[in-house]
């Protein structure tokens, strides 16, 4: 299936603000088995110079996967989602995510390719805080594997 190239360069409106909760941070840290007190204890975070507890580096997946759904679940794009896997991920941080942050995500369609019959979609997300400050840029690559793809299949697709 080929991708609708008119999606290339498309920028989506910022998502509704996501309120980062300290219990959600704790739950996420528990789920990755990370006992670091900087995710749970404001005093431990302050000892490292943070104003409040911070979130693990991959916490932002919660926001970016949902925001990216605006693109990859749009039937007009032509991506066969039943064969999609998460191929690559980049995060580039300006600062860590903190409890009580209000974050929005702005999604841009950065690249649409077909490689060896596999459709490849690369999205670039800007994550901004309550005052519009840039917190992180995220780049996510999804691949819809052609039937009977070889060794490159991998984890992390979306429902």
């Amino acid at each position, binding site marked *: 299936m080929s991708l609708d190239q008119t999606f290339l360069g498309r920028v989506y409106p910022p998502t509704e603000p996501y309120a980062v909760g300290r219990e959600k941070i704790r*739950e*996420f840290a*528990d*789920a*990755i*088995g*990370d006992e*670091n007190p*900087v*995710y749970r204890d404001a005093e431990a975070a302050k000892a*490292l*110079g*943070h104003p409040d507890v*911070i979130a*693990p*580096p*991959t916490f932002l*997946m*919660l926001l970016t*996967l*949902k925001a990216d759904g605006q693109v990859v679940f749009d039937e007009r794009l032509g991506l066969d989602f*039943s*064969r999609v*896997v*998460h*191929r*690559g*991920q*980049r*995060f*580039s*941080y300006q*600062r*860590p995510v903190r409890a009580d942050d209000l974050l929005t995500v702005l999604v841009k369609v950065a690249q649409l390719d077909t490689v060896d019959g596999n459709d490849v979609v690369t999205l670039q997300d800007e994550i901004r805080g309550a005052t519009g400050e840039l917190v992180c840029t995220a*780049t996510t690559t999804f691949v819809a*594997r052609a*039937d*009977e*793809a070889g*060794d*490159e*299949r*991998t*984890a*992390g*697709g*979306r*429902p």
Partner: protein
Amino acid sequence: MTEPVNYTDVQPGTRLPTRVFTVGRADLVRYAGASLDFNTIHWSERAARDAGLPNVIAHGALTMALALRALTDWAGDPAAVRDYRARFSKPVVVPDDGEPARVQVEAVVAEKLDSPRVRVSVTATCGADKVLVMPRVLVALKE
């Protein structure tokens, strides 16, 4: 937690402690709930096989989170990790056979950049498979 490492303590070739993490089905369920990633290939064997996978596989982002633990525990402050790109090269297969998958994480300082930043190269393996590579993680250490 061990003492955080300082910029002056490391050289190109400095190896971080090797870490081994176990990933069982319960871990995938818990991660799905926490991350809101309910893709069926991460919990349903039938769905995974229908998608052409050998069995249920771990979320790529979970493997990435485990690999980063090797760095955040080493640097002392998770905020020290400034930039990384991960490539999920093979899946971490998690059969429901009572034996969790074992993900081994190796990391080495590849380059010292302007103080206090270093570039670290990270590889995660599961059995004989290289499951994740992060060749260029920028970490800002204590000066």
